[in-house]
């Protein structure tokens, strides 16, 4: 009887653990881009245990009887991160019921938190995941004013646990859009940002009086001023879109004045002030393929801008390509390849879509590199990780292989053969 209980208990334990923990996996014979001090290891191995990276190295000097993946001829990188997307906020752009990126409601400014709108069931998630994207920063877009609101960070899962941070940074716009939303002049945008922070400081200093309604009026409502406090306290970064050299310099002044954790997004002309960005320690979110002089703020946009900024010591976080940064957010890999084409070292280009965003947003203890103790979110590529002829062969999240299936692959398989007796609707 006790034997039976033991067996049952063991069985239950197995069922229980298999639901939570992945089977141990050994990936061997791979070229491993660790994006860590371990560098890039030829014919290396990665041991995955309990959903985490357990060991990484060159020579396997231990016994292993779990699942083995022979990755001969393949390479492994950390799962890719796109640092600027609307993933989960938009299923179809022109279908308003499936579009949640911004609000026109004047009730919300900096306090507009986008996380509750993220839809784990979006078809956009598996499509990107099977192409190697495992994490993304999800940003709100400005609706009626220059502050867009609070962005989130997600893991590309189709469950509610996909959100890993509901408040990853405050997003704002100091480009031509920001000017337009501030009455038509960038001077007004600047004044508004600065006054918002001054007011938030004043609000915090007099917080008790404010809460009892015993203080002065501000142009932002109190809940918006509250939302600015973690930015002022440098708990979260201010991520602000800006392109023109003079605008970037104004933002660097604000950074000093308020001691902000500043991240600049866009930065088409950032390469002209790369030294200033580097010495201010300001990371830049950039699409390395965005070289069009799209507006008069971006006249100096060029294809080697990312490489120039990297060479000056700026920490880069990649996004792209262009407006496809959501539905095909995995194209950040093509964007990274573009930076590498213009001279950025391959591992640095990979770092800009793995470790750098993890560092800038405070997740480097969990993902972004292939190191012991980090979550086993990896991509096995069937060739050079930046090459266009390379595809993701397997995507592993928390140590488990992700099914390489999306709505798109289902449609492909359905229509692969057009000569069948029954209509396609009978092929599932």
């Amino acid at each position, binding site marked *: 009887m006790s034997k039976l209980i033991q067996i049952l208990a063991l069985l239950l334990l197995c069922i229980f653990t298999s639901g939570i923990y992945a089977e141990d996996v050994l990936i061997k014979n791979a070229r491993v881009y660790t994006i860590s001090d371990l560098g890039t290891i030829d014919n290396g191995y990665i041991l995955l245990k309990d959903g985490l990276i357990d060991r990484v190295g060159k020579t396997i000097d231990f016994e292993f009887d779990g699942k083995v993946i022979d990755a001969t001829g393949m390479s492994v990188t950390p799962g890719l991160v796109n640092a600027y997307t609307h993933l989960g906020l938009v299923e179809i752009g*022109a279908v308003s019921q499936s579009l949640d990126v911004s609000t026109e409601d004047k009730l919300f400014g900096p306090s507009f938190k986008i996380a509750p709108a993220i839809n784990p069931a979006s078809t956009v998630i598996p499509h990107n995941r099977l192409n190697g994207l495992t994490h993304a920063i999800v940003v709100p877009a400005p609706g009626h004013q220059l502050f867009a609101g609070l962005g989130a960070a997600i893991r590309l899962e189709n469950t509610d646990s996909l959100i890993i941070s509901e408040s990853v940074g405050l997003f704002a716009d100091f*480009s031509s859009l920001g000017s337009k939303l501030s009455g038509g002049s960038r001077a007004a945008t600047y004044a508004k940002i600065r006054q918002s922070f001054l007011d938030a400081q004043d609000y915090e200093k007099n917080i008790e009086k404010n809460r009892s309604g015993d203080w002065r009026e501000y142009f932002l409502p109190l809940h918006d001023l509250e939302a600015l406090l973690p930015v002022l306290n440098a708990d979260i970064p201010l991520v602000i879109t800006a392109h023109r050299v003079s605008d970037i310099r104004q933002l660097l002044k604000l950074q000093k004045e308020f001691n902000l954790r500043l991240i600049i997004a866009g930065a088409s002309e950032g390469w002209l002030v790369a030294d200033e960005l580097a010495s201010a320690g300001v990371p830049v979110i950039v699409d390395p393929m965005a070289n069009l*002089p799209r507006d*008069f703020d971006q006249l100096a946009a060029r294809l080697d801008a990312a490489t120039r900024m990297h060479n000056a010591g700026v920490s880069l976080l990649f996004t792209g390509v262009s407006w496809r940064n959501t539905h095909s957010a995995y194209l950040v890999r093509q964007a990274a390849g573009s930076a590498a084409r213009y001279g950025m070292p391959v591992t640095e280009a990979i770092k800009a879509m793995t470790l750098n965003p993890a560092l800038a947003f405070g997740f480097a203890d969990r993902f972004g590199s292939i190191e012991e103790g980090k979550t086993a979110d990896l991509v096995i590529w069937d060739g050079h990780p930046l090459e266009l002829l390379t595809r993701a062969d397997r995507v592993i999240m928390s140590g488990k292989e992700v099914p390489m299936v999306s709505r798109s692959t289902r449609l492909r398989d359905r229509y*692969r053969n057009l000569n069948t007796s029954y209509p396609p609707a009978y092929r599932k």
Partner: protein
Amino acid sequence: MSQLLHRSIIWIGLITLTISACQSTNIKKAYVGEKNISLAAPFPSTYKRLSSQAVLIKNTTLLTGTGKQINNASILLENGRITAIGNALDAPLDANVIDAKGKWVTPGLIDVHSHLGVYPAPSHEASLDGNEATSPNTAEVWAEHSVYTQDPQFTLALAGGITALQILPGSANLFGGRGVTLKNTPARTVQAMKFPGAPYSLKMACGENPKRVYGERKQSPASRMANVAGYRTAWIAAAEYNRKLDEYKEKKNKGEEVDAPVRNLQMETLGEVLRGNILVHNHCYRAEEMAVMLDIAAEFGYKVTAFHHAIEAYKIADLLAKDNVCAAMWPEWWGFKHEAYDMVEENIVMVSEAGACAIIHTDDAITIQHLNQEAAKAMAVGNKANYEISRADAIQWITLNPAKALGVADQTGSLEIGKMADVVIWDGDPFSVFTKAEKVFIDGALMFDRLNSDFQPVLDFDLGVLDPEGERL
């Protein structure tokens, strides 16, 4: 990037639906006399190839555009034409000999769907000239009359190996107007860019865009069924216009005294489609709509040359092959509209494997600079799904097949003796992310050279704009 960062309406950028403030005027002017209705081509091409010395490119890998890869090959460009291809060619005495060992040579790349010049950069209130969204039928407008020749995007595309491109009106209307095929050569006038002898095209649009633009104004079309009624009504009028014109010509030929019919620009364009002289380029995403458009073409006796943005082409690849219609597609753009929801990454490969004419187009000023990369991505996804696509196959999607759709395949689009010497030397495998176009020849003349700033054109917009003494880039 401004489009990318912080624009909830980023999607609009793609569907290029910017409403022009201008009112369209149907210019109706009575002309008398046969000369005036002879449709002698106005705005003729004044393009002239630059004179250039002979060029022998040797020791290279050729992707011919006709489905072949030739290793250790040489190619000779003389008097604007390709005059020899072989493994060991002798250079004429005056030839510029380029040792292209380790490099690759392809035909010049061709984009069948571009709005360069009509949506130039920088984009602003006054620069949006691509959509005459004032009436569902604006067949009377011509994209070439909007082209800003100093659009800096032309030279960026040249640096990506684009030697010819079709500039189209936008997709707000059922009939958007005439498109024009240009040589990607810097010029002072649009006429000097026009591809000599290339037929005109007519831009038509299915689906969401026309019905949204006019439906929102409580005008017709507000539904897909009204779209179709709109096309058919217009074709009936065009057939009648042609009939009257033919009747007039017949009487005139018999020596009868008759007044010439009043010219109608809209009907001239539509009428020439029915006569087979203008090619139909039809923005159309959904499978059933493409099938309906093919039936309309059959009803009125014209041909659809290519469906553009054909997201669902894979669903009807057999129909496209049977009717010999091209499909111009993207590798992975999707989700910006409901009709762009059923994207499969293998679309291009599936259409190609079905025996239809598969084209990769861009509709985008960034992607046009990397058209070779678009082909590489489509090839990669196809091979991962166990289709067997070679580089020699895939290059056709961006060279010969677009040339066919533009009606210029007898002139360009492949490396064949006698064709225009529109040629790109790549500094490596054009399917690699690390490769750049190194030299671009158009009609045998070196128009771009990454290694020599004398051959890096700077358009007027780029001159002195950031630095009074320098250039933008």
